[in-house]
């Protein structure tokens, strides 16, 4: 059954159809959220928020491509996450300001990106300003066309092209500084 058919059924109140739709797309949400910088432990929350929100507005859905909508909603959910995250961090920093103790345990992120060069590149992508980060992630890891990216980000096509170009340049610079192209596996 296609996305469109599942959506039509879900719009009619068929929760099973909606479950199927979630099963088809939850990996996209999880991966996209991680690539945008969401900690792996918070991904279930984001995924829940995305699918609850989609269900809430399902009756308004009349676009042809479900995934474009899915990316838009995930993007907003990750933005909210950032806002919350940065505030919490700031509070945390205030509380632990006087503490000088640091312990090291490998993060969940390090367990996912086992190669150092992947971690470097992943970090470099996360350090990009969001206007550069999202086009790069959507283009390289989700294989969206320029037009689709423009639609997801609500940005003109020409801007998407420029931003991809600039993002690429910035990443290449970081990679060159951090060991160059040869540091492969």
């Amino acid at each position, binding site marked *: 059954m296609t996305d469109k058919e599942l959506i039509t059924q879900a719009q009619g109140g068929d929760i099973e159809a909606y479950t199927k739709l979630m099963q088809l797309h939850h990996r996209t949400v999880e991966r996209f959220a991680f690539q945008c910088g969401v900690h792996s432990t918070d991904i279930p929350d984001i995924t829940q928020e995305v699918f609850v929100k989609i269900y809430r507005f399902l009756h308004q859905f009349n676009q042809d491509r479900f995934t474009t909508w899915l990316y838009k909603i995930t993007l907003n959910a990750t933005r909210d996450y950032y806002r919350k995250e940065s505030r919490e961090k*700031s509070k945390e920093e205030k509380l632990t300001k006087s503490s000088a103790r640091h312990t090291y345990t490998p993060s969940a992120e390090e367990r*996912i990106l086992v190669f150092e060069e992947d971690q470097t590149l992943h970090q470099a992508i996360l350090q990009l*300003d969001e206007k550069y980060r999202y086009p790069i992630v959507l283009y390289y890891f989700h294989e969206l066309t320029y037009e689709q990216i423009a639609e997801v980000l609500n940005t003109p096509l020409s801007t998407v092209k*420029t931003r991809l170009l600039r993002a690429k340049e910035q990443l290449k610079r970081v990679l060159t500084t951090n060991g160059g192209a040869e540091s492969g596996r």
Partner: protein
Amino acid sequence: MDDKQFEDRMRLLKKSYDRVPSQFQQEEIIEQIEIEKQSQTVDLIRKPRKNRQKLTIWAISIASIFVISILGATFILESDKENNQGGKGQYTLAEVFKDVEKDYPITREKNRKLLKMKEEDFAELDFVKVADSKYNMYKNAAKKDAGKYLMSAKEKANIYDQIIKRIQLPLPLIVIAASNPKKLSESEAKKYISDYYFRTEDLVNYYENLFSDYKEEIKALSKDGQLNEQTIPMNRERLPQELQDAIEGARSQNLHLKVVNSKFVFAYLNDFAVKKLRDKISDRLLGYLTIIEKAPYSYDATLLHPVEETGNILNTIERTLNLVDKEEITFFNAIEYDYAEMAFYFLIGSNEHPVFDKKGKVNQEYRDAWQNVLARSPKYSPLAVYLEPIIRDFQSTNWTTSENWENVLSIDIKKVMENKLKEASLDNFGDEYYEDLTIINSEFESQNHMYLKNTLGPNAKALFKEAKATDIVGLYYNSMRLKHFDTVLELYAKGKQYDIPSEEQIMKNRLESFEDVTRLSDIMEYMIFIQSSTEKGEPEKGIVRVIMKKEAKEDSIRVEEFQLIKEDVGWRILYTEAQ
């Protein structure tokens, strides 16, 4: 690193992302959906949902509302309705729109011609798209208006100005701001600064894309096939007409073309906006204009300004950026990024300005620039974190080696900067300062629902006493929505020195648009609570800012602000007359 190597690295990373573990909790999601469905049913029974577009909470007189968006047609109708009731209005929307309809297309066409752009390109610029959509929105509203609502002459003039201002090019926008007889308020100034930046950025994007499209044709014009600073001026007349027009159009907006490392870059010709607005905005905010007009700062690992000037720009950024601007200066993050990049090359040098001379010693220009910047650095300077140990190392080795210099990473600079901004912000507000962010989600809503349900119960007093300031504001919206005026009244501060609104005043301030709301999360993104510093013996005070959800067609954020005070019974809202 060439393109192929880069693509390979990205391909490998994409593969690694497959290892992101799936933690999909299907049952929990379905359960959450069921809960929402049930609560929606309850709301729907209480109040049928109407058109959400009407939801604009402009005239809440208890809240000082600072709005960073243009008036919507709905507002015209809503605010006009009030005027009509008060008997002040004399113009219908159709009459209000008449002058706009005459002048908007003329101004738009004049601007397009000034930029020498084709209509299809001009219409694609972001700010033109927004301006056109607002204009059409008013046009449609004016057509449908049957003269039911009336507006005052002042409102008529305001609407005219707002719509025409939308289509202004960056430079005229600054001229308009400068023509203001009084000093601009902080909010007004930030709005002009943001608009100036984004409209110019739109143009720069367009021009840089256009020149990239013609790169090969331009290369063919130079003898050695290389692009340099002279290629364009030397061959100006041989350029395709579209490019000649673009150069002229860009110049009309204070932009000129540069070639850096064989790439086309558009830069500001001079500090036009800074000069124009020097007396109109505060010195600190003027810093944002100084920063903007120095852009671009670096390109392709090359600093575009001399080392000393780069140091000055970095210093200006450090003195200007303040977290309080983050909501309104919409390019705040972009400056953070630019700062980190510029600071990186300022520290490690670039191809055109290497740090070391032929003898392996640090060049004098870097020694001077670093020491100058350090001497002038503000208390929370990210750059000082690096410069202090680097200069110390170099001085002890006769300017030949520094371990700290070897370890500079651009990624770290951004982090250091974020931390310094937070530290500065905490310091500004003193020890008493406290800031908290609350996302308006289902958790907040169910908590608020609980307060609402218990307003008349035996535990009401104790509950209200414990409620956070943001809960009180949430409760205010919910009570207004459901016309629980007794509860609204209870939410105001009762101290002798404060005004207490009558039920009539509350009723008057209640817009019909509240009826459209069934969930706060449909209209609100989040709330920020900022507690002000408290004098000894004085009650605690604070501000709650409500950041409203952006409507799809709006290009700006609406923020509503409430002042609160902590009385014996808990946080309460201060009543103020309509703004």
